[in-house]
């Protein structure tokens, strides 16, 4: 059987030879080598013409969400958050708890019982290895800050139905994501009008691979939920919820 230097032919075909003279002479003198060379170049050209594969934005967001859900759901062998960050979360939780207890004791919110549900204090945002968090009453934010928006209705609706836990995972949230997403989709103009001016928001969107997205709404509960959509108004109206400060995608739809 005729054996020919496949290395040489393959290298000639993929253009990796610095000196092609020997290989050219070979394929001139050997029919089998020539056939092989033709086959190699043909296939290389076909494959090179294949477009690059990319994940869609939804696939990226879903991957990110599912991955972190999976990581949260298994026993952690190590802390997923630096100790100092965990301490700061605990400190923030204690601060909020003490503050709310003080406010409630002073009777300032005596008439707000209707809007109070239950939620838990801010604790470890990482989930599976989180220490149990202390429950505190939830008080919906009022609109007396002078900066209330029409969306405040959405916010308070969301607040009234929200039950959250220290873990930022979507499995522990009862936010009406679908309804809120539908509302956001209905306000298509927000995509064009909205500009994320908050550097933290921008940094977070970059971190979760949503650079080309814009914050169309913001819901402040015990954590901040950003509703983001692609900046391009022609793009699919997919709404993604990102929770802060964990900066984690908790819903895509």
């Amino acid at each position, binding site marked *: 059987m005729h054996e020919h230097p*496949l*290395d040489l*032919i*393959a290298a000639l*075909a*993929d253009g990796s030879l610095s000196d092609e003279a020997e290989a050219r002479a070979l394929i001139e003198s050997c029919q089998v080598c020539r056939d*092989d060379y033709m*086959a*190699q170049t*043909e*296939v*290389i050209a*076909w*494959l*090179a013409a*294949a*477009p*690059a*594969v*990319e*994940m*869609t*934005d*939804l*696939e*990226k967001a*879903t*991957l*990110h969400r*599912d*991955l972190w859900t*999976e*990581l949260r759901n298994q026993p952690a062998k*190590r*802390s*997923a*958050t*630096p100790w100092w960050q965990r301490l700061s979360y605990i400190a923030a939780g204690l601060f909020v708890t003490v503050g709310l207890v003080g406010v409630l004791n002073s009777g300032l919110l005596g008439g707000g019982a209707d809007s109070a549900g239950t939620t838990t204090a801010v604790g470890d945002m*990482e989930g599976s290895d989180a220490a149990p968090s202390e429950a505190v009453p939830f008080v919906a934010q009022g609109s007396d800050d002078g900066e209330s928006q029409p969306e405040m209705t959405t916010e308070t609706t969301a607040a009234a139905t929200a039950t959250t836990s220290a873990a930022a995972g979507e499995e522990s949230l009862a936010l009406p994501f679908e309804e809120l997403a539908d509302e956001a989709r209905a306000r298509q103009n927000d995509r064009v009008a909205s500009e994320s001016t908050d550097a933290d928001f921008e940094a977070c969107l970059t*971190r*979760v*691979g949503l650079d080309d997205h814009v914050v169309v709404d913001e819901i402040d509960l015990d954590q901040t939920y950003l509703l983001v959509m692609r900046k391009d108004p022609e793009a*699919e109206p997919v709404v993604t919820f990102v929770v802060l400060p964990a900066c984690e995608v908790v819903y895509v*739809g």
Partner: protein
Amino acid sequence: MTVPGNEAELLTRVVSGDREAFDAVMRNHQNRVFSVCLRILGDRERALDATQDTFLTVFRKAGQFQGRSAVGTWIYRIAVNTCYDQLRRAQRRPSQSLPDHLDPSDPAAEEAMESAALRPEIEVALAQLPQDFRNAVVLSDLEGMSLPEVAEILGVPIGTVKSRVFRGRRLLAKHLRNQIDQ
């Protein structure tokens, strides 16, 4: 092979539980991992599963990265092994129906699938290749990786990669001509 300092440093931070570092590693490599998995498995949904499994492994085994190769090479090796595992599992359960190609809730995926699709006859011919040949051809000719990198990812000598790529292309050409003749 050189180790890109920033990437190796990112992995070190992942070991200490830095999520931001892990997100950065993901951002750098998710598209290529997905591409490799899609070309090897031939199915978008399975490729997404394999991509997720790959990064789970990356997270869990970040501490085992020795710095002897580029971080990307190490990650793609995990991706290829994850695909092997998926293929082995699929062979053990031949009666199980394959998942749908596309997520019906993601029209962009359909568009992406169409735009990234190989010509159908090439896809068919590629699927007919022995797995070892297919992987070598995918990494070398579709992903444009160098032969030493492919060798490292597949865990075989460079000579073996050259041989697999060469024979894989030869078989591809043969399958394609057969299809054209039919």
